[in-house]
């Protein structure tokens, strides 16, 4: 039921009349644009003056040490936590008007999985913008949800209470909910934390498929070893933006060191895209 995202569909959802006129040349090919974003909880900023651009159709890993503000940057960008200053546009529109364009997958640990509900109900939450308060959840909505479950290999678990699922399965349900939202932009917060190897594979494959459809994928990521093979762009963050760009130019030992601190043990498992270092 989920249609491949055709250029027409992107145009349809993303390029409806822009408010405030032309936002400049980069607005057309940038799916998500962050300008001078600063977040502070009353103390020193946890994210300071970050500029970042996520081109449409790109698949970006957001990396940085613990407490570097990766999750906070994206949450603030999507208006989930307040920002001190900065502007964010999604396909050229302010976030508040672009809710239908972006699917957000929070950290798995951020919710109570003992909540009395089934897997399919969680996926159906992804249809909220369409169904609203009252519209009946009909066959077509259910079919979309079932299709999303199938794409993450969870069809057999549709009627399970979510607390009975393993961590990896719960993460797949979260991904299925994002698929059901059918948005051109997807933002995932640590989708690989504490999941099994099979789930990691499934999630990467689904994300690659989304990217191939022309959707923009942003992932807060921890495992440096999988960055070069699985992503095409990287945003390196340590309160400030350290670097951003295509993997081949940006994901260098020097930048990783600058992000994580000079003496980080750079694992041999990383297959550096460049010859440097």
């Amino acid at each position, binding site marked *: 039921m989920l249609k491949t995202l055709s250029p027409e569909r992107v145009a349809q959802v993303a390029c409806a009349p822009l408010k405030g006129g032309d936002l400049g040349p980069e607005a057309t090919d940038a799916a998500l644009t962050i300008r001078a974003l600063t977040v502070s909880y009353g103390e020193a900023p946890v994210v300071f003056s970050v500029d970042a651009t996520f081109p449409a159709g790109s698949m970006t890993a957001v990396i940085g040490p613990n407490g570097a503000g990766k999750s906070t940057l994206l949450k603030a960008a999507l208006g989930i936590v307040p920002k001190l200053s900065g502007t964010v546009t999604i396909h050229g529109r302010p976030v508040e008007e672009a809710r239908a364009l972006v699917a957000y997958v929070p950290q798995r640990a951020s919710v*109570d999985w003992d909540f009395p509900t089934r897997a399919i109900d969680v996926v159906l939450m992804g249809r909220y913008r369409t169904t609203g308060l009252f519209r009946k959840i009909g066959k077509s909505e259910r079919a979309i949800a079932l299709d999303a479950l199938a794409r993450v290999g969870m069809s057999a678990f549709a009627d399970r209470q979510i607390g009975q699922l393993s961590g990896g399965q719960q993460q797949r349900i979260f991904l299925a909910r994002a698929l059901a939202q059918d948005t051109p932009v997807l933002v995932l917060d640590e989708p690989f934390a504490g999941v099994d190897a099979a789930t990691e594979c499934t999630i990467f494959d689904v994300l690659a498929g989304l990217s191939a459809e022309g959707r923009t994928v942003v992932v807060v990521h921890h495992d440096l070893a999988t960055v070069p093979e699985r992503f095409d762009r990287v945003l390196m963050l340590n309160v400030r933006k350290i670097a951003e760009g295509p993997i081949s130019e940006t994901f260098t030992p020097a930048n990783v060191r600058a992000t994580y601190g000079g003496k980080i043990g750079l694992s041999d498992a990383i297959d550096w895209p460049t010859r440097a270092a």
Partner: protein
Amino acid sequence: MGAEFVQLSLAPLVIGTLAAVACALPGNFLLLRRQALIGDAISHVVMPGIVVAFLITGTVSTGPMMLGAAGAAVFAVAMIEAIKRFGRIEPGAAMGVTFTTLFAAGILMLEQTDTSGVHLDVEHALYGNLESLIWFDATGWASLIDPVALTGLPAELPRIGIVAILVCALTVVFWRPLKIATFDEGFAASVGVPVATLGFGLVIVAAMAAVAAFDAVGSIIVIAMFICPPAAARLMTNRLGNQVGWSVVFAALSAVIGYVAAGYGPLWLGVTDSVSAAGMIATVSGLILAITALAGPHRQRVA
């Protein structure tokens, strides 16, 4: 079970049931949000709110009292939030500081003011007075269709009736956003659900239910009905809709069985005086919770 029942027991039964259901509905969401004790806090501050309303207006009319109680509930919630956020104190302690202080202030004001001659005292605030809500004008079941007799119904009945209907309606209307925001606040915000407003709205509705119920049945039932029926219901099912359904059934059962046991139980035991209906309703809700905790089909977490 004729005229006497209609005159003495019908109104308290209906009022008790409506109060129980009105509190149990928002209680489900408070329970799932780990805010069960907000109900506890609200019911402690209703009394100070009423005292303040009395001090300001000098009368014991329903309007100002309801407003005063609702105002106190909002004040308490704001105070808890402020202590949590600005003082960085954990939620439980923030609630403890807030409701004990406001309750203490309420007691002090009550003792300081001359409320003799006014129907306002601590015990009434705690136990309510369900038994006194008698329908004097009723002569039998026929009175239910007698417009003259109907005007003599206790004023608490229409009040709690309206609030119960309102609470039901709001639960139905906001079902989806409430469910989404209760399960996953971050996701809810990302799809445009106004999570802060919704959370505050839930507390206001809970306060409204508490105030209307307090008016008729006192604060013990309010706390018990916020927590016990939803908690027992959670142990019966793994679906939110069913949980809310069970909680309504349990709340109504507690009210009916509790009232009957309080009024007629002692008679059956050969004692003439009845016991507190409010206390009995709370007790029955506790027994229901005990039964579900021992035998409810979904009483345990499944790993």
